């Protein structure tokens, strides 16, 4: 994992000190709320329905035990004992007092963390594959490039006041777990014809009011050119992106209005015009230095099958189910990656208490080579676990209420905070999410239904990624009443697609029963247990699912 040196630390400390000054000016009244707003927003501080909210950056979702324990401390000491993990792999606290914010930023700096660029019209936290460095299907570890992009984009002098927020995601695996095609820029690490590793560059993906799947503007660009090329994209966007209408200001609109070819040409022209002295010079030694931090942990050799574990799972159906559902293949025999689901029935999706964070930190320290990730599905992942240790890991997770066996299944749903916290919302997300979860309360039924992504947003801003859920649920306001519009067929992976709107919105109470009918229809219609919901939908089209959605029980 990357560790700060004196320069990284200086920057984060200086930023915290700067914000301390800004908060002091605000609290003394020297700064009015209007003038303070852009400043606090640049430090991830939002004014929500009930209180200030602080969003802390977790670059590419990478945590370690010390960081997670500090997040727990902040939850306990400055919030109400919990935090909320987001689809940007970040964490949000909903109840921090403004006067405490500077101390919280200092506490974060103590563990090499910050809240820089977690809001505002700048380059946001770069996200990545939560199985990076462990997955069997990656070309190489994408995290060094995420860290390089983090450094390059931090307090960027030219790109801190863009037309709108800007999100970059990086993946290096054919199975895209980072949703790179629905980001402003998606980078897919690939080999070219000569076997050299570089990046496919995808732009203009995004969700919100006008969702788009991104388009590839470069099939491949060499690593040495990446940052200069990104600067060219950013400059074209900063100069020509629309600023007259907030809803048309994202890069996807520019790409669409110009047309992808013309946009690519504008970027290429800008890139070609860059003089040598304008190139972003990242010394090879620096790339090597950063890369070394992400070297794989020393994984002692182990047999591919663990007798201890096989015996334990045979004796314990709960362990067996958890292992079947929550584990992902590791590239090293004898090891596995495991999801810690933050989607227990009836809980707010993505929420985790301080005590739970400490349990996860202890497990990671003792069994997981100190490595913990936040997945954009709002779960945690322990990327490196010895299969031998799984019974003990599972026991500890279960004791902490962290052993929900639903990773990738229906009740592992994504939901934004919605009307319970967010002042932009139209409707509640959490309660409708809990009602949907209850449909899948029987774990056997849920497993039978198989992989299914249900994503819920409380408004068109789409923080809950409803457009790319296999089933999307969007809160809309109809004359003061909460309604939910349902979409089918969205996906965020390498076959990214925006879901189809199926018909009129449903009342809150009707959503879960309607989805129960849709699932029953799917189970009837699928070719067999191997055909996932999304594949059945692609094969059959909306008609049978629509019929089930609006049928009367």
């Amino acid at each position: 994992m990357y560790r700060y040196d004196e320069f990284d630390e200086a920057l984060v400390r200086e930023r915290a000190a700067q914000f301390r000054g800004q908060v002091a000016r605000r609290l003394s009244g020297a700064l009015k709320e209007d003038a303070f707003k852009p400043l606090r927003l640049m430090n991830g501080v939002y004014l929500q329905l009930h209180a200030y909210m602080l969003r802390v950056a977790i670059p590419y979702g990478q945590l370690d035990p010390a960081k997670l324990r500090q997040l727990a401390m902040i939850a306990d000491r400055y919030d109400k004992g919990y935090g909320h993990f987001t689809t940007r792999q970040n964490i949000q606290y909903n109840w921090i007092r403004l006067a405490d914010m500077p101390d919280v930023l200092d506490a974060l700096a103590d563990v090499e963390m910050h809240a820089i660029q977690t809001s505002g019209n700048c380059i946001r936290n770069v996200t990545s594959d939560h199985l990076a460095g462990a997955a069997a299907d990656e070309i190489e570890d994408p995290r060094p490039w995420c860290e390089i992009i983090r450094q390059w984009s931090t307090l960027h002098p030219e790109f801190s006041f863009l037309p709108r927020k800007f999100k970059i995601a990086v993946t290096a695996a054919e199975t895209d777990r980072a949703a790179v095609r629905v980001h402003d820029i998606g980078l897919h690490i690939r080999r070219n014809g000569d076997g050299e590793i570089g990046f496919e560059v995808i732009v203009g993906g995004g969700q919100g009011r006008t969702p788009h799947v991104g388009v590839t503007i470069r099939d491949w660009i060499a690593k040495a050119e990446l940052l200069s090329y990104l600067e060219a994209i950013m400059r074209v966007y900063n100069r020509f992106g629309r600023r007259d209408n907030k809803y048309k200001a994202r890069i996807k609109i520019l790409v669409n209005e110009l047309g992808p070819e013309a946009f690519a040409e504008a970027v290429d022209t800008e890139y070609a015009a860059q003089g040598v002295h304008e190139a972003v010079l990242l010394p090879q030694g620096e790339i090597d230095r950063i890369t070394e931090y992400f070297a794989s942990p020393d994984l002692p050799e182990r047999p591919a099958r663990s007798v201890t574990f096989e015996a334990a799972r045979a004796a314990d159906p709960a362990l067996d189910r958890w292992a079947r559902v929550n584990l992902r293949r590791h590239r090293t025999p004898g090891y596995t990656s495991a999801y810690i689901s933050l989607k227990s029935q009836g809980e707010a999706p993505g929420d985790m208490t301080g005590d739970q964070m400490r349990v996860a930190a202890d497990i990671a320290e003792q069994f997981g080579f100190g490595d913990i990730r936040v997945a954009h599905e709002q779960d945690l992942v322990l990327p490196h676990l010895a299969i031998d240790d799984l019974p003990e890991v599972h026991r500890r997770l279960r004791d902490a209420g962290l052993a929900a066996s639903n990773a990738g299944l229906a009740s592992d749903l994504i939901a934004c905070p919605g009307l319970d916290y967010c002042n932009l919302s139209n409707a509640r997300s959490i309660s409708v999410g809990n009602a949907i979860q209850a449909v899948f309360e029987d774990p056997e039924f849920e497993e039978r239904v198989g992989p299914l992504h249900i994503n819920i947003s409380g408004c068109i801003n789409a923080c809950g990624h409803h457009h790319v859920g296999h089933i999307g649920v969007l809160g809309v306001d109809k004359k003061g009443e909460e309604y939910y519009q349902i979409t089918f067929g969205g996906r965020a992976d390498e076959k990214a697609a925006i879901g189809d709107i199926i018909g009129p919105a449903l009342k809150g109470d009707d959503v879960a029963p309607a989805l129960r009918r849709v699932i029953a229809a799917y189970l009837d219609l699928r070719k067999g247990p191997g055909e996932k919901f999304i594949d059945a939908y692609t094969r059959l089209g909306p008609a049978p699912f629509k019929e089930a959605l609006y049928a009367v029980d």
Partner: protein
Amino acid sequence: MPLIKGGAPVSCSRRFFADEETPPDPNDAIVSLGRLVAAGGDVFRSVRLMPADDPLALAPHIRRLDLIEIAFPGFRDGRGFSAAQLLRRRLGYTGELRAVGQVLRDQVFFMARSGFDAFLIDDPHAEEIVAAALSEFTVAYQSAADDTRTIWERRWNARPAHTRRDDR
């Protein structure tokens, strides 16, 4: 309105003339991009760019210019940062680059890094504001239009390549 350049207040006799005004002395007039270009290469020495103006249109005039103002109508419009970088780095402009309009304390650092060396700020404490804004950060990752040595450069000067394995 105080004009801060090189960390200190300075005075400037030039002022902006709208396109319909006739300046008594073209040497003292700051004009729009359209007027500068229309007047040909050797009439004016000072120009004001608005956010939508193309800074590269100044290429044929750049040697004669010694004052370019870039207007910031509000903190959200960041086009001026790109304009400054293009003038300094693409066109090699070395004269005064002045930020005018809504020049906010918390943007001065980004402006300076983008190549601005003068700030027109509507505040009696402009000098302290600029000094404070420019002292908040001692480090920066990216190369830009200023002469800050970047973190990436400092790391690689401070630390010979062969030692880098030892300091994890």
